[in-house]
C-alpha cells in the first residue's frame, strides 16, 4: 500500500516551472532512487514533502493524511504531525556545530517528543553503536570526517523514529573514498525495510539497493521503473542520454 501519494505536484519560480504535474506513489518498505540531471527538480520535489518548499498545486498524501490537497495546505498543526513522519538527510549534513554528536542526536527528541531522558539516552547510545560511532559521542561535528558527519546526520534523523527517510544527495558533498561508509548505513536501513526516497547521483546505489528508480528531467518524471529495467532498457531518449552520460 502507498505510504506516500503525490499527485500533479506543481511549483514555479516566476515563469520557471520547476515541477510540472509530478505524480508518483511510494509503497511501504520501498527504496526509491530519484535520478536526473541538475536542475531537474529532484531536490525541490523531495523538499516539498517535508514542507521545506511550498508547492503551487497538486496533492501530497502521507499515510492517508493530506499535507496538501489540490494546492490547499492543511492546518499548521496537521502539517507538523504529517511531516513528523518523515526524516530528512541533507547534502551538507546540517549538523548543529555547537553541539556534540550525542547532543545533536538528543536535542529534538528532548524538545519535541518529550520522552524520558533515560529512554532518549539509551536510544542515542544504541543508534551510535549501530552506525559505529559510539567512540565519537562527545566529539563536535567539526572533528568528524564528512562520512562520519553524514552518518551522524542519518542517526539524528532516526532518533525521531520516522516512517520514511528522505535523502537529498547524501553523498554528493563527500570525497569519493568516504561515500562507501554512508551508502553502507543506507543499505543496512534498506535491509531493515526502512522506507526511503533517495535523490542521488550514485547510479551504483540506485541499481543495487533501490527497488524503484524515478528519472526526472526538466521538472517532469520522464520514466520510472525497476532499476534493472530502467538501467538496461530505458524507454525514453532523455533517459538514455542521461544514463549514457552518467554511466560512462
Amino acid at each position, binding site marked *: 500500500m502507498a505510504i506516500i501519494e503525490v499527485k500533479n505536484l506543481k511549483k514555479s519560480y516566476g515563469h520557471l516551472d520547476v515541477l510540472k504535474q509530478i505524480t508518483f506513489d511510494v509503497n511501504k518498505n520501498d527504496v526509491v532512487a530519484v535520478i536526473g540531471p541538475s536542475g531537474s527538480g529532484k531536490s525541490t520535489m523531495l523538499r516539498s514533502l517535508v514542507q521545506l518548499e511550498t508547492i503551487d498545486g497538486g496533492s501530497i498524501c502521507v499515510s492517508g493524511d493530506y499535507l496538501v490537497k489540490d494546492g490547499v495546505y492543511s492546518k499548521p498543526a496537521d502539517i507538523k504531525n504529517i*511531516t513528523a513522519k518523515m526524516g*530528512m538527510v541533507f547534502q551538507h549534513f546540517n549538523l548543529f556545530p*555547537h553541539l556534540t554528536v550525542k547532543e545533536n542526536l538528543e536535542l*529534538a527528541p528532548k524538545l519535541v517528543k518529550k520522552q524520558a531522558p533515560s529512554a532518549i539516552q539509551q536510544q542515542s547510545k544504541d543508534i551510535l553503536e549501530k552506525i559505529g560511532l559510539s567512540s565519537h559521542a562527545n566529539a563536535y561535528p567539526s*572533528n568528524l570526517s564528512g562520512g562520519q558527519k553524514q552518518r551522524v546526520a542519518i542517526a539524528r534523523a532516526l532518533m*525521531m523514529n520516522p516512517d520514511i527517510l528522505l535523502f537529498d544527495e547524501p553523498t554528493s558533498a563527500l570525497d569519493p573514498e568516504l561515500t562507501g561508509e554512508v551508502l553502507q548505513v543506507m543499505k543496512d536501513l534498506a535491509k531493515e525495510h526502512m522506507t526511503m526516497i533517495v535523490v542521488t547521483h550514485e547510479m551504483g546505489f540506485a541499481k543495487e539497493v533501490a527497488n524503484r528508480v524515478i528519472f526526472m528531467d526538466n521538472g517532469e518524471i520522464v520514466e520510472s521503473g525497476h532499476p534493472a529495467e530502467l538501467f538496461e532498457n530505458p524507454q525514453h531518449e532523455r533517459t538514455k542520454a542521461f544514463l549514457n552520460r552518467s554511466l560512462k
Partner: protein
Amino acid sequence: MSFDYIVSILGPMLEGAQMTILLFLIAIAVSIPLGFLLTLAVRSRFKTLSRLAQTYIYVMRGTPLLLQLLFICFGLPMIPVIGEYLVLDRFVAACLGFILNYAAYFAEIFRGGLLAIDKGQYEAAQVLGLNKFQTMTRVILPQMFRIALPAVANESVTLVKDTALLYAVAVPELLHFAETAVNRDFTIAPFLVAGIIYLIMTLILTMFFKWIEKRFNFA
C-alpha cells in the same frame, strides 16, 4: 618622576578608574541585550518596526558619540517646555549616551552573526520538528553568540577607551584626574600612568574574552 609622586597621584587616578569601570559595566550590561533586541527588530516582519530600528542604528552610528553625549547632557535641557524635566545627573546622562550608542553597534554585530548562520541550520531544525522559538534559542542563538564573540570583544575594548569621552561632559573619570594632575604638577607622568591603567584594563578584558572564546569553541 619619582616613585613617591606616582604613588601620590595613583589614589585619585584609581578612583577615576573606578568611574571608568562602573560606566563600562553598566554600558555593556545594558547595551548588549538592547542591541540584541534591536537586531530582532531589524529582522522583524513588521516593516515599520524594522525601519524604525534601522533608522535608529543609522543615526547612532552616523553621528559622533561625543556629539550624542553633549546632546544628552547639555542639549536636552534646552528643549522648550519639557527641557527642564530632562536635566539628568551627568553620570546617568553619560550612561544613557553610551548605552544608546553601543546598542546600535552591538545590533549590527549580532545581525552579522545571524547572517553567517547557514540556512541549512533552520531547515534541519524544522525537519526535526523544533518550533521557531526552540530553533532560535537552542540552535541559532548559541551559534550567533559564538560567531559574534570576537567582534563583541573588539567593541568592548573600544568601549573602555571611549569612556574617556566622559572628560568632555565633566564627569570625573581616569583621564580627568590625569589631566588635572598634569596641569597642577607640570609633569607628563600622570598621562603615562593613565595609559598604563587603560592598558591593564583592556588586557584583563582581552584575556576574559579569550577565555570565553575558548570555552565556547566547538572543536
